[in-house]
């Protein structure tokens, strides 16, 4: 992460200076704190709300139910934590909520899932295999109903706001499949 981060910043500095954009760069540095706050605060607020809902779902047994539905798939996907039903339940809920395009509701369950994986982590500042697999699944973002894009298309006067969906679904499925295959071959070789 350190190398990636420093390279991005130094590369941008170098290119920006060459292009004479030093004012913009300096301005960005000054305002980044405020911008992060504006970005993180609403995100945390929405996550808090859905955290509350998820807690009710957990107490009512809804999460455990989803875990049982997806159990064989989850045990194959995350063999290292196959006996931790609570964490697997959160993973299951995260996958299913993401499919409905409710990214903000999927986040709190995803965070609970990764916190559950961290409990089994012998080296707390290093990612485990399960975490990498779970994140690859999330960055692929399997969404069957991309609600925000549909809403935008309608807002901009599309006559056919939904016809792109099957193609987006195929694209997102292939992204996740390739990601999971690469992860499996690379990280689970032994």
């Amino acid at each position: 992460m350190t190398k990636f981060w420093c390279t991005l910043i130094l590369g941008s500095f170098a290119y920006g200076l060459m292009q004479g954009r030093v004012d913009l760069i300096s301005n960005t540095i000054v305002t980044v704190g405020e911008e992060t706050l504006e970005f993180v605060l609403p995100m945390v607020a929405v996550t808090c709300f859905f955290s509350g809902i998820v807690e009710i779902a957990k107490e009512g047994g809804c999460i455990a139910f989803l875990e049982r539905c997806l159990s064989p798939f989850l045990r194959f996907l995350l063999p290292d934590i196959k006996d931790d039903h609570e964490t697997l339940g959160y993973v299951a809920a995260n996958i299913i909520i993401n499919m409905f395009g409710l990214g903000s509701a999927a986040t709190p369950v995803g965070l609970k899932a990764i916190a559950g994986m961290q409990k089994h982590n012998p080296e707390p500042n290093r990612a485990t295999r399960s975490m990498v697999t779970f994140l690859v699944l999330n960055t692929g973002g399997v969404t069957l109903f991309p609600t925000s894009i549909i809403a935008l298309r309608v807002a901009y006067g599309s006559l056919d706001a939904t016809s792109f969906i099957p193609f987006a679904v195929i694209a997102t499925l292939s992204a996740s499949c390739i990601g999971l295959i690469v992860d499996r071959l690379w990280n689970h070789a032994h």
Partner: protein
Amino acid sequence: MLTNYVLPVFIGIILVVALIKRVDAYSSFIKGTKEGLSLFHEVFPAMMAMMLSINLLRVSGLLEAIASLFSGLLANVDASLWAMMLFRPFSGTASLAIMIDIFKTLGVDSFSGIMASIIQGSTDTTLYVITLYFGSVGVKKIRNSMFIGLISDLAGIAMAIFLTITFFS
């Protein structure tokens, strides 16, 4: 819109189940919400680091310069689409902004408008997901997750281009 039913139905089911199982739903809600609050403390530093590098990448013009190297590679694909693809894994708001711009200038139902919609839906913002999730548990050595995430984005975007060219041109 049918999609507006999703959330009320979801939450409705959860509350009905809670009532049937005699769960103290109100207390659970308060407890869960309180847990969510600690997220700010965990995630804010990592988000700030990410925001700095991504904003610099954008305002310096570096990402656009890289995108312009690709333009002309495929005849039908507009330069703005290449920029959008490059932004997609790093900044959801930036790629969304380009998509909206494409809707306005080239038309929401045009070839470019449809390709933009499929690209936006094909993957999530990898850098954001990794920052948020690893940041929340304090993991700093992220192993090959970023690299694999980007490979998966590449696969999704390539599939999006292929499908749009095959079915919409």
